[in-house]
């Protein structure tokens, strides 16, 4: 009789494996650089940044624009009853820079890019390609995982900036039309109410989420078992895990930040 291991234990095991993936990838890349060579092929890195970054701009902009717009509209109407619609720019600005920008972008990138990474690496694992790379002594972690994780790590914050800007544009547009707030005043009030601290918090979160998405999706891809169905399951599981982990860490970050700066 085999007892199935407790869910807490498996979660902890996965967590430690993901951390080890990070450590081993770092070691392989470090070893490479100590020998005076590039840690990975920059062509692969640029391919991934192009896909992750440039390829996601349209989706991120569109979704953020509409969310920013809707948020301004809904809160605006509520605030209008108290004659406080001038608070709209600050509200949207703060929400996006410290919370919604990183979170929404993280979720969209987990679904769009994390899924692709898992499917790609999963297929390579199933067809023994990853093993062949390992058997040649190339080091699949630095060769395959390195450029992918770094691509989301660096590109997610850039996309968050895009998300923040488009959300603000959506909000500005609707505020001009529904609440007669001119663009210049919108920008001024938004800038006044935003704090450096919020922006820093948002940026830290963005990097963290990028790292999580990259590591989780590569880990899921490299541990695929069982052919085409396995790749499918791993991809689903990768998106779900990445999104829940991102939301989990977001909550954790907020708690820590509030505890540290009591806002």
């Amino acid at each position, binding site marked *: 009789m085999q007892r199935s291991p407790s869910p807490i234990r498996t979660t902890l095991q996965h967590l430690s494996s993901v951390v080890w993936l990070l450590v*081993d990838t770092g*070691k*392989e890349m470090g070893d490479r650089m100590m020998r005076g060579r590039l840690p990975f092929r920059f062509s692969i890195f640029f391919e991934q940044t192009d896909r992750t970054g440039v390829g996601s701009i349209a989706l991120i902009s569109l979704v953020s624009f509409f969310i920013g717009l809707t948020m301004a509209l809904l809160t605006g109407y509520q605030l209008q009853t108290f004659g406080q619609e001038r608070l709209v720019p600050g509200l949207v600005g703060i929400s996006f820079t410290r919370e919604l920008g990183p979170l929404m972008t993280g979720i969209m990138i987990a679904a769009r890019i994390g899924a692709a990474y898992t499917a790609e690496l999963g297929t390579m694992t199933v*067809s*023994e390609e990853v093993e*062949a790379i390992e058997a*040649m*002594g190339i080091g699949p972690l630095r060769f395959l995982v390195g450029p992918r994780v770094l691509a989301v790590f660096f590109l997610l914050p850039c996309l968050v900036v895009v998300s923040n800007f488009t959300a603000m544009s959506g909000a500005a547009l609707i505020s001009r039309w529904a609440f007669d707030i001119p663009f210049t005043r919108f920008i001024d009030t938004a800038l006044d109410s935003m704090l450096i601290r919020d922006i820093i918090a948002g940026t830290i979160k963005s990097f963290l989420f990028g790292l999580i998405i990259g590591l989780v999706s590569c880990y899921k891809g490299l541990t695929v078992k069982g052919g085409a169905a396995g790749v499918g399951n791993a991809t689903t599981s990768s998106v779900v895990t990445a999104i829940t982990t991102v939301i989990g860490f977001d909550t954790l970050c907020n708690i820590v930040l509030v505890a540290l700066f009591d806002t």
Partner: protein
Amino acid sequence: MNTTPASSVEMKDVHLAFGEKEILSGINLSVPQKARLVILGQSGGGKSTLLRLILGILRPTKGEVTFKGLTVSRMSRLRLNRMRQKIGMVYQYSALISSLSVRDNLALPLEELTRKSRDEIDQLVDEKLELVGMADARDKMPAELSGGMRKRIGLARGIIMDPELILYDEPSAGLDPVISSVINELIISLSEKIGATSIIVTHEMDSAFKVATHMAMLYQGTIIAADTPERFKNSDNPVVAQFIAGETEGPILQAPQKT
């Protein structure tokens, strides 16, 4: 430290289990330098698994595998990578990188692991493709090739770094008789010219006896016989005799199926 061990690969009481299922149960095997060892064994008997143990892709549950006197299972990831550069592996199902062209597949280890110039790399790639008779497939993608063609590209990739040890997992399965002989001769000439040690897993008795300088039979998780090809041919071990003759009568199918 600098004593050159007489054997290239050595396995001492190697056990390997996948979960509850024990695949290898006490392998003892020693492969002398420059030998061409043919490993025979039933389908599903753990031959490919054995090769993975030598590469350090799998770790034995018990026992130890050494390559040139160093224990593979105790090496760090970085040391393993360095060791693997001296070993060429020819995969049973080719395992070519599907997103790279034939040329890039062969060039990959050279580009990643050596400091050769592009011209030198191209020259080496052409040379190895020529050896396996695939010079005109240079710019094709793996998906455009037949199984046998892929196999030969896989072989060319396995030998591109001029390895000290070459592991062939069924190198001539699925190839026509002419190409099959070409591959056999290639295996022999590689070991004679470069002085590489070879471990060859095969089911084809003709090519097995053609290339082997040593032979071993893997049966039910252990090496039940290891000897010269001549003595293998006249073996009185019933399992070996039945396997070589390909008969249906004998201990092999009657043995209880291990599950």
